[in-house]
């Protein structure tokens, strides 16, 4: 049984353009959502949260998972841009990127295949701790996918490749409304992308564990 916890997507400019979680305790998104719900009925990122007051969320069983980042244009209530920034989440994204970036660089250097253009010639695929395993995939254009799962899962490389080739390229890259700017990073706010991604992860999680 593969338990997928969350997914980060970083673009070439080191910015997190997408984060979603399916199974996480003490998530900064859930905390923010609760705080928001306490004051008024806000729609956060096209979602209205109902009922759930526990701090741990597992959303593979019906509810749509929380997503980040969202820009102020995606909410229907006019709130100031300040209150929409989830600083905790931003910091977390930066930390995750820093860990992955440094690890990948060390591995490249140890293989003496480092270059100033990055890439993953050293072949960094995953690392594990007691509680989770982090899987990494870097596309040749520099987009980075980071997936956290339970410790038992050995390799999610095919899954990450699938996500890149058939979901990211299909619904994000080929979307003419997704602006690609060499200077500015745009977050992914695409319902199709989210839906297909959720379905795919749901399938993966409920299928039998793939032979490694």
């Amino acid at each position: 049984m593969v338990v997928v916890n969350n997914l980060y997507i970083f673009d070439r400019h080191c910015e997190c353009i997408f984060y979603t979680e399916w199974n996480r305790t003490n998530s900064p998104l859930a905390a923010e959502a609760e705080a928001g719900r306490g004051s008024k009925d806000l729609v956060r990122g096209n979602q209205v949260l109902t009922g759930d007051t526990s701090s741990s969320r597992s959303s593979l069983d019906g509810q749509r998972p929380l997503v980040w980042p969202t820009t102020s244009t995606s909410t229907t209530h006019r709130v100031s841009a300040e209150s929409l920034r989830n600083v905790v989440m931003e910091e977390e994204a930066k930390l995750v990127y820093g860990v992955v970036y440094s690890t990948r660089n060390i591995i490249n250097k140890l293989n003496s295949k480092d270059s100033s253009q990055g890439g993953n010639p050293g072949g960094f695929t995953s690392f594990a701790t007691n509680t989770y395993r982090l899987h990494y995939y870097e596309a040749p254009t520099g987009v980075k996918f980071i997936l956290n799962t339970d410790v038992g899962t050995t390799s999610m490389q095919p899954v990450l490749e699938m996500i890149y080739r058939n979901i990211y390229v299909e619904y994000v890259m080929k979307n003419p409304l997704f602006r690609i700017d060499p200077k500015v990073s745009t977050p992914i706010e695409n319902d199709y992308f989210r839906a297909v991604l959720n379905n795919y992860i749901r399938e993966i999680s409920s299928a039998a564990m793939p032979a490694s």
Partner: protein
Amino acid sequence: PAFPIEYLLVTLTHGFPLEPHPAFRATEPFAVENREHLHNVQTLGALKRQIVGALDNSERLALVLADFHLLVYMFGLNLLGAEEVAMIGRVVSEPMEAAQRAEELMAMSGWQTLVLMLREAADTMAKQYKTIGDEAWKNSVEKVNAELFIFTYGSLVVQLLRDHEDCTAVNQQLDKLGYNIGVRLADDMFARTSLDRCSDIRATADVIAKIGFRMFLNTTPTVSLWTSDNEFSLLVEDNPLNDFCELPPRALGDGLWYSNVLCGVVRGALEMMHMQARVWFVRDVLRGDDTTEIRVRVERMLDEEVPAADE
């Protein structure tokens, strides 16, 4: 314990000769090893170019072999026997009789094996790209009606001409359009094939021509007219966009490049692969030239961005 201090004075001869006669006197130096970050990579293709290009003239071969890094790379391939190595040593260290030695070298079997392998090796890379491109075209790409595409593009150019009147502005617009397409096309190509990053610009040029153009336009331009290792030309024999198209004299006179969108596409795709390039049209059959030529110059390699440090 205290050691007795003694001094030993040694005279070392040093200095530079008044008339230097270096043994390694190659005029076109081979790439230095361990300089991948400068994108000057030692590849079999580069070795092939140096050696096979000089095989007809033993003087030239002797000159080409008088290059330390080339020799190190070649010996590292483990294809030459001890005899050949010794002969090469004599070629380099006896410049007066270098041509003769080079002739003797060319007769040796180990050397001939090496040349054969070089000829084969570099070619298979090119063949590989071609098969990847063909296979991608056949299986991985959804196809659309060519005429629909050509006519849509044509009407787009016509509309741009009506809006802008000035052909330079239209060229710029087409280039911008192409750029926006190109940045997405790079990811699309990687999604459909199992390619990885190219090691140098020559491989990149091959991939663009044999795989990129083939996959998306079903035409394979030839890569040629290399100057200085980072500038090359794509000679497109049959540009599908040119079908059914005829340029009016006003557009001809003003300098319209009808397929300028292709330049933008190449520029955008290269930028996604961390290469900043200038891409422009040199000749176009629509303007009466004999062939269509797009020139690409890779100005610099873009480094990967580093995350901003926290203060």
